[in-house]
């Protein structure tokens, strides 16, 4: 405007902006509407779950306030309702699952995408996907009847050698003639082991997806410099897949936080704040809800739904962060000129 020597009116008429718009055929518009509608319904359902849980939680929060989050006991008969121990148990089980699942998923996905011969690649992908298709109740039964008797030996070994680290400590009598196996069963550690079986396929398939997308040009560049396969993976595949590694892990964490039946099978619900993950007795939010749901009064039900709200928000947060990492990863954006 400053530099213009012409009268402004004339310029305005010359610079009249138009926004050209192609008219879409009605089929296109119809499809657009239908797709938009379906996407909208998904959002509405999801949002309504949150609203419903929040609404149901109002009486609980009105009665117990913030002590709902700090109280460790869940004993409605004594009017003691809180989820601090349950929250801790939920996080413990999920973290154990993650620590076990992460290296296995990473190694499996690298093997499938980079090392497996072409003819067995499809089979391996199908097998991992099949792991995700096994109902969690089966994993629970497997964990309880098959895994637990053996896992307690592992727990004992860990506590014997690493018991000086507080979380691996188990309060038993070291001088006892027979080791107290009952102290090691039903623990967060064993539940986490079992849940990791369900986390592995999700995490693995997200990682495999991004690894497979690592650009051929960069792979070849690395090989042409005289790199070994492992060198190529370190310089190209892993940096490229970083978003997927983090995102897949977070997605697995979201899955682990919500796992119910398998956990309920293995743990014995107790409501003490228990930092010793190898020691028996813990609780998780979803297991608590599943366990108490059938025999609740309406006030107790509301309290359970409040616990559900907390879990809903936690998994929502974790999954959102995972989604951000996955979409922000360089997937699809190969080296551009």
């Amino acid at each position: 405007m400053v530099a213009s020597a012409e009268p402004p009116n004339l310029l305005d008429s010359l610079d009249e902006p138009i926004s050209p718009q192609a008219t879409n055929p009605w089929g296109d518009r119809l499809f657009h509407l239908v797709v938009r509608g379906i996407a909208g319904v998904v959002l509405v359902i999801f949002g309504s779950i949150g609203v419903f849980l929040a609404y149901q939680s109002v009486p609980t929060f009105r009665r117990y306030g913030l002590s709902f989050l700090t109280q460790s006991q869940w004993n409605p008969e004594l009017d003691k309702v809180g989820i601090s121990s349950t929250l801790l148990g939920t996080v413990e089980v999920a973290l154990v699952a993650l620590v076990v699942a992460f290296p296995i998923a990473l190694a499996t996905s690298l093997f499938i995408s980079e090392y497996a011969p072409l003819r067995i690649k499809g089979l391996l992908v199908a097998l991992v996907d099949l792991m995700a298709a096994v109902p969690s109740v089966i994993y629970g039964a497997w964990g309880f009847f098959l895994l637990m008797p053996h896992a307690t030996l592992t727990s004992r070994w860990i506590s014997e050698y690493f018991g000086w680290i507080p979380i691996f400590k188990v309060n038993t009598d070291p001088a006892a003639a027979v080791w107290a196996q009952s102290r090691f069963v039903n623990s967060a550690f064993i539940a986490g082991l079992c849940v990791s079986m369900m986390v592995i396929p999700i995490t693995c398939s997200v990682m495999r997806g991004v690894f497979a997308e690592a650009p051929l040009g960069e792979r070849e560049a690395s090989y042409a410099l005289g790199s070994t396969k492992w060198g190529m993976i370190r310089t190209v595949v892993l940096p490229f897949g970083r978003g997927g590694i983090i995102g897949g892990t977070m997605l697995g964490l979201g899955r682990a936080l919500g796992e119910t039946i398998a956990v309920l099978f293995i743990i014995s619900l107790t409501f003490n704040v228990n930092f010793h993950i190898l020691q028996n007795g813990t609780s998780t939010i979803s297991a608590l809800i599943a366990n108490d749901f059938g025999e609740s009064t309406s006030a107790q039900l509301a309290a359970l739904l409040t616990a559900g709200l907390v879990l809903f928000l936690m998994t929502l947060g974790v999954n959102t962060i995972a989604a951000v990492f996955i979409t922000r990863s360089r997937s699809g954006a190969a080296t551009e000129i």
Partner: protein
Amino acid sequence: MSAIEEIGPESLVSGPQLTTGITGARLDAINVSAWFGTNRVLSRVSLSMPPGTVTALIGPSGCGKSTFLRILNRMHEMVPSAKLAGQVKLGGQDIYAAGQRVTETRKRIGMVFQKPNPFPTMSIAENVTAGSKLVGMKLSRSEREELIERSLTRAGLWTEVRDRLRDAGGALSGGQQQRLCIARALAVDPMVLLMDEPCSALDPTSTRRVEDTIHEIKDEVTVVIVTHNMQQAARVSEQCAFFLAQQGTPGVIVEAGRTEKIFTSPDDPRTEDYVNGRFG
């Protein structure tokens, strides 16, 4: 083929040698054939690429030039169904002989690709030293800095990026990225540099820079370049090989010889037709 010279150990340690001597290595392809699955794409191709010269591989698309180039540093075998026959000798030694390490071969015979492919998560400096890291060369800080400057200078990029060596390699322009890739390939001190249509994605100015670089390095590194650009072949190369794959038959070298001759008085009429733009 009998007079293939042995390379002495001194040419393994190149670097900024100010001698006028030619330090690149001789590369000989002898009766090279190639297949993808059962489809034969090259038939008994023999070509000598002497040190100190730039060899251009020309010919229409699909005639096997790129396949031939990728056979020269064992990149061909990256394709699962790929097979080959024949020998490729670097300084007299067959790179496909049993016991030859493929990583060592590729380190000695570098490659620049059609599409610039710097490592996008690395800085400019890290891109240059990526090769030395990958092959396990231990460098002190000063050696590293010297290597970066020397390689970027050889690739004609130093003055443009000297102040932003820590910037991401992917942030450069296409032409600069390609020169970064050349610097990266030169940084591991190869004896031969293979270039697969290195300028096809570049603007004329960048193309000119790359051609200048080829002229500057050809005494130290034997250069083999695939190009679709006849003028470029005429500008940069001393010898030229014309590849052709007639319908349904595998690619062969119709004619190879001094570039001047190929472009002015070729023996084969098909060569003349091609270099004069009558087909392809």
